[in-house]
């Protein structure tokens, strides 16, 4: 288990380093920030002074080395737009993104798990058909369009909920619902097929031959094993949601991490882009690490490695 964990940690560190490196070089391609920072018609001398101050006059590899070292200390530089530390600008948005992600994950998983279990247990009935049709539609619907449709119905037509922004529970409902639909559709489909696969396993027959009650067979022998791939899926979704759903945050004007990165890209605010992407990568990698750990708890065969 210790070796398994250590190799996973190493892989995680490597992945974060890779992402940070790519982002560093990609942002150099984006354009010259001095053009944005200085007023139009600034003298060449002003430009050079600023470039020197920002360290942009040094060779690119030296810049990369300096950037990497400061990033390790959590220093991503000062945001051009906000003139504050870039990491602060991004971290401030974490609670909003976290709240949205948490809501969507909780309700999405709950609904998806129940629906998936019903579809698998009521094989060949109208319930299965309804659940699977809904899940197929849910997976085929672009989330941002679903968000717009929900705004159209609940905000424009009925006037019950705000069209966007944040600050109250009412603001959370529509974006949360939109993302929950997406989450539950994926989970319902995966759990159903996973359950149906496990139900055919020999050890389920063994469990039934032991005379165990159907409830015990389902929870301890079927669901316990069917959950393993679902946990991976939840981990991937959690990572994506915690990284900030750019489109949904744009549709609902939700002040999250995804939106701030998007705005930084448009404004060529390098420090914020780098801080944001590094944060998202860390979240992503840490969620994956947690999933791997949970995997070890669920599956003793992996724990042994």
């Amino acid at each position: 288990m210790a070796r398994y964990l250590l190799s996973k940690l190493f892989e995680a560190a490597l992945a974060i380093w890779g992402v940070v490196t790519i982002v560093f070089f990609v942002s150099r391609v984006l354009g010259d920030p001095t053009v944005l920072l200085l007023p139009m018609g600034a003298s060449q001398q002003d430009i050079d002074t600023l470039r020197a101050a920002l360290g942009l006059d040094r060779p690119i590899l030296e810049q990369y080395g300096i950037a990497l070292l400061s990033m390790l200390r959590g220093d991503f530089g000062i945001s051009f737009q906000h003139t504050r530390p870039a990491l602060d600008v991004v971290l401030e948005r974490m609670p909003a993104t976290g709240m949205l992600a948490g809501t969507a994950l909780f309700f999405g998983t709950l609904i998806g798990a129940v629906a998936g279990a019903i579809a698998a247990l009521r094989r060949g009935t109208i319930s299965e058909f309804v659940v699977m049709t809904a899940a197929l539609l849910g997976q085929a619907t672009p989330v941002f369009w679903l968000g717009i449709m929900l705004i159209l119905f609940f905000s424009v037509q009925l006037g019950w909920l705000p069209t966007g922004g944040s600050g109250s529970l009412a603001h959370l409902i529509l974006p949360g619902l939109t993302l929950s639909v997406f989450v539950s559709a994926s989970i319902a489909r995966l759990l159903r097929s996973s359950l149906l696969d496990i139900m055919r396993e020999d050890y389920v027959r063994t469990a039934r031959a032991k005379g165990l009650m159907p409830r015990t067979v389902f929870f301890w022998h079927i669901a316990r094993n069917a959950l393993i791939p679902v946990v991976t899926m939840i981990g991937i979704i959690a990572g994506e949601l915690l990284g900030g759903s750019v489109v949904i945050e744009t549709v609902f004007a939700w002040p999250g991490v995804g939106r701030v990165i998007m705005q930084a890209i448009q404004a060529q605010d390098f420090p914020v882009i780098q801080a944001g992407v590094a944060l998202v990568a860390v979240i992503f990698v840490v969620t994956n690490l947690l999933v791997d750990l949970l995997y070890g708890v669920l599956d003793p065969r992996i724990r042994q490695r």
Partner: protein
Amino acid sequence: MKPLLEVRNLTVEFNTASATVHAVNDVSYTLAEGETLGIVGESGSGKSVHALSMVGLIAMPPGRVVRGEVLFNGRNLLALSQRELFDLRGKEIGFIFQDPMTSLNPVLTIERQIAEPLRRHLGLSASQARKRVVELLELVGIPDAERRAGQYPHEFSGGMRQRVMIAIGVSCNPKLLIADEATTALDVTVQAQILELVRDLKKKIGTTVIWITHDMGVVAGLADTVQVMYGGRIMERGPVRAVFNDPRSAYTWGLLKSLPHGSQRGVKRLYQIPGNPPDMTREPVGDPFAPRNRFATERCFRETPPLVDAADSVSGHKVAAWYDLRQELAKLEAASHD
């Protein structure tokens, strides 16, 4: 001897969208208490399905018991409620399945998997169950049982897992133990050890056993009675010695011929029964083995032979055949001398 199990006209079908599979056709037999019955047949002969269907372990649908009765201690199992079946399985009838690699739950400890029926049927507490699990593991010959109980199936070898399966099967001292291809997935030495263990256990706890296998050799060393099945029917049954020395069904004869003998090892190629297994989706008419039987008469294709006492043999030796195998073999013998 008093009968423990009486199977009467058991017929099982599987209905799929495109076809109906006639898995078990009109199977009847009696099993005495303490007897060991070896059921032999190739895959698709209905030998496993008939045993599983007795206690509701086949998927229904698509499976369906069309007719028949299964009297276990006088109670018709096919008429039991679900709840009564749950109470019976694992307690009065224990199972040992083939392929111990897939028949144990990979994510639960061995202790938990053996303790489950103990706690459910015998109402043992957690600590009582634990004690009993260790006893059972020792009984089936697993060394260091205390420690091994806390391990997972993947930490056991194939033979050891099969021992665990046996421990589960006998955990509640069942009156009947049904072993389905219990040694098939194991290599020959391990197989011999497991068979030795079962013989030993039978002496100790005196369970009635149904041993389902495709291997005539296994049956010879273990069973009192052998029952040969083909195409969902019983082709021949009787005391092991009688059936082995004096087979009356061409199918049994073929199976015995394909067994390796000490004397012919490496000299002659092993005999193989010609032809393919029967198409079970066809309406069962006639002797199912007829298309592969060199001795088949025209009647074999038309009419299903009943299972009747074999002429001039010991009591209990029964065969379902229109032809007389002894005569046919004698003719064959004579022809080869010419």
